[in-house]
């Protein structure tokens, strides 16, 4: 029927078109802001590009910055597919990171081949349970997951702050835990770069989530609940279980993102280590249209903006925060477009009604 290869390509092109336009528009807004504040946008963007992709080490560092974003973007997108807005990835990332720091530091006598998976597992489990709470509250009491995940972000950050200051603190000025054991550290495979095998873990996660969502029954049911929970319920799908499960899996992905930062980058839990990877994940997911392939590209884009931003600020005195501004503007544009689409849908429904 219509499912030809050519048709599919056209479909992908159509889907990808708007995110690309939104990104260009956001970069353009960046130009305007720089012009208004008296900066030279050409120099700034050149430096940014240079910093992000100018050398193999630069590329490696960009990918390193993108690694948690693959996972947090995926976490947001996965919950989205079940109709849930998980704003709590930042908190899940924090509790996961703390779990990884503790297991990585205090579980002794294991070879790396066992210690690394166990540490990752601990982070995923703790963060999964953490995200399961708002999932359960939604399923059981119908309280809004947006509010609960926001609340739990603050609780999580305060909790790990307590743990790092009062319980697991290593000597030193900055509150941090002791360095994790070498057997729990993720191998860095590029000289002069902190890029580590966590990247491959993220790639595997991207593929596994894709497979789960579209090739398995679990994915069929989760997406059914996301699109129309009433119809799913009527078809014998356990809506409540799917909501909790989607939140748990989403949280696990967030936890893994935190674990990678600890095990591959900082090698201990440092207070305030996250520049907002969890929130960036929301932008990544939206720009990537909640699809693993889209997330692959959008996470690299945001990783490049953040990484190149350092070079840009040093070379041209444009503050690195421009990257954050561009990110926000991208979200604006993507949000407005998604709703333009919803509007079309409503028009169609109006037509069917009469």
């Amino acid at each position, binding site marked *: 029927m219509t499912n030809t290869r050519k048709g599919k390509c056209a479909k992908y092109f159509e889907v990808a078109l708007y995110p690309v336009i939104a990104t260009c528009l956001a970069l353009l807004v960046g130009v305007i802001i720089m012009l208004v504040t008296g900066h030279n946008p050409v120099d700034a963007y050149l430096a940014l590009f240079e910093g992000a992709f100018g050398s193999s080490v630069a590329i490696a560092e960009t990918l390193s910055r993108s690694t948690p974003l693959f996972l947090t973007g995926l976490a947001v997108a996965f919950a989205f597919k079940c109709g849930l807005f998980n704003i709590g990835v930042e908190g899940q990332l924090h509790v996961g990171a703390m779990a990884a720091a503790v297991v990585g530091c205090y579980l002794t006598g294991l070879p790396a081949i066992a210690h690394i998976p166990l540490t990752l597992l601990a982070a995923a489990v703790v963060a999964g349970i953490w995200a399961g709470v708002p999932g359960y509250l939604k399923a059981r*009491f119908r309280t809004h997951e947006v509010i*609960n995940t926001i*609340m739990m972000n*603050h609780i999580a950050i305060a909790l790990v702050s307590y743990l790092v200051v009062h319980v697991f603190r290593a000597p030193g000025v900055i509150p941090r835990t002791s360095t994790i054991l070498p057997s729990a550290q993720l191998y860095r495979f590029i000289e002069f770069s902190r890029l580590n095998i966590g990247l491959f873990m993220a790639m595997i996660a991207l593929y596994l989530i894709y497979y789960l969502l579209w090739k398995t029954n679990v994915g069929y049911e989760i997406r059914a609940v996301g699109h129309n929970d009433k119809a799913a319920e009527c078809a014998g799908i356990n809506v409540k279980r799917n909501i909790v499960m989607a939140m748990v899996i989403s949280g696990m992905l967030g936890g893994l993102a935190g674990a990678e930062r600890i095990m591959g980058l900082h090698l201990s839990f440092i207070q305030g280590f996250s520049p907002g990877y969890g929130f960036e994940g929301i932008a990544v997911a939206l720009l990537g249209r909640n699809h693993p392939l889209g997330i692959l590209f959008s996470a690299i884009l945001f990783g490049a903006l953040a990484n190149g931003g350092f070079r840009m600020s040093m070379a041209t005195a444009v*503050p690195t925060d*421009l990257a954050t*501004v561009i990110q*926000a503007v991208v979200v604006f544009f993507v*949000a*407005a477009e998604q709703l333009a689409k919803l509007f079309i849908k409503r028009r169609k429904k109006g037509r069917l009604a009469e």
Partner: protein
Amino acid sequence: MNLIERIFDVTIVMVTIRMATPLIIAGIGGMFSERSGVINIALEGKMLFGAFSSVAISYYTGNPWLGAAGAILIGGLIGFLHAVVSIKFNANQVVSGVAINILAIGLTAFLLETFFHVSGTTPTVAKLPVWGGFSPIVYFVAVLVVFSHITLFYTPFGLRLIAAGEHPKALETAGVNVIKIRYLGVIISGCLAGLAGAQLSIGTMSLFVEGMTAGRGFIALAALIFGKWTPLGILGSCLLFGFTDALGMRLAGLGIGLPTQFIQMLPFVVTMIALVSFVGRARPPKAIGMSYQKE
């Protein structure tokens, strides 16, 4: 006995009021938006914009009153932006709120470096005067609570605001422009959140620190929910949250250790419990989060 006297004195009352003030203003701002049907998780960002712009204006003009007015104006502008995206362009209200929060963090830090050539903290600027131990904004809060209570429950505008959040189509068929009511609700929320930010930066301190709202916008959101979307409820829950803050500081000052982190968690934990126990009783405006579009 002695200890209790040392904890509960006039000062703790004053600190409670001081801590609660920005929360009440932002919370009531959020109420105007959510009652009209627009979910407002952008209070945090709007407060941050208010905090920064009041300091910047006070710095350039030397007049903190202009700073406060500017914060209201800028807050209103951001509210307008939020309204355009989520009402006119029909954007998901949560997503647009997230965008405003990210924008606030990025743009205030960006402008801080561009204007003041420093990062982290601005130089000190002229702050609002102290009247009887409080900034003038504290007295404004008393007026605000009474004013918004009357507006919501005893004026035609209040009736229409509630209708817009409950059943926008019913309001439209009654001959009222829903879009206009929602715009007003979101812009008012921006103005008030901006003022709440000004209270943080030039009301209590006299400078701006990056990310200085530190989650207070979200606490205000929590107070809004805990206060069941009414001005008096918001007042009560903000005073409660303010008191826990004040108590925490006092206990820490006396060397009695409940770690501050647990005090910080309290409003959020309380709100989650409240949300669960509300089930079947108080409820949010029915049409909250849903965009409204004329055919």
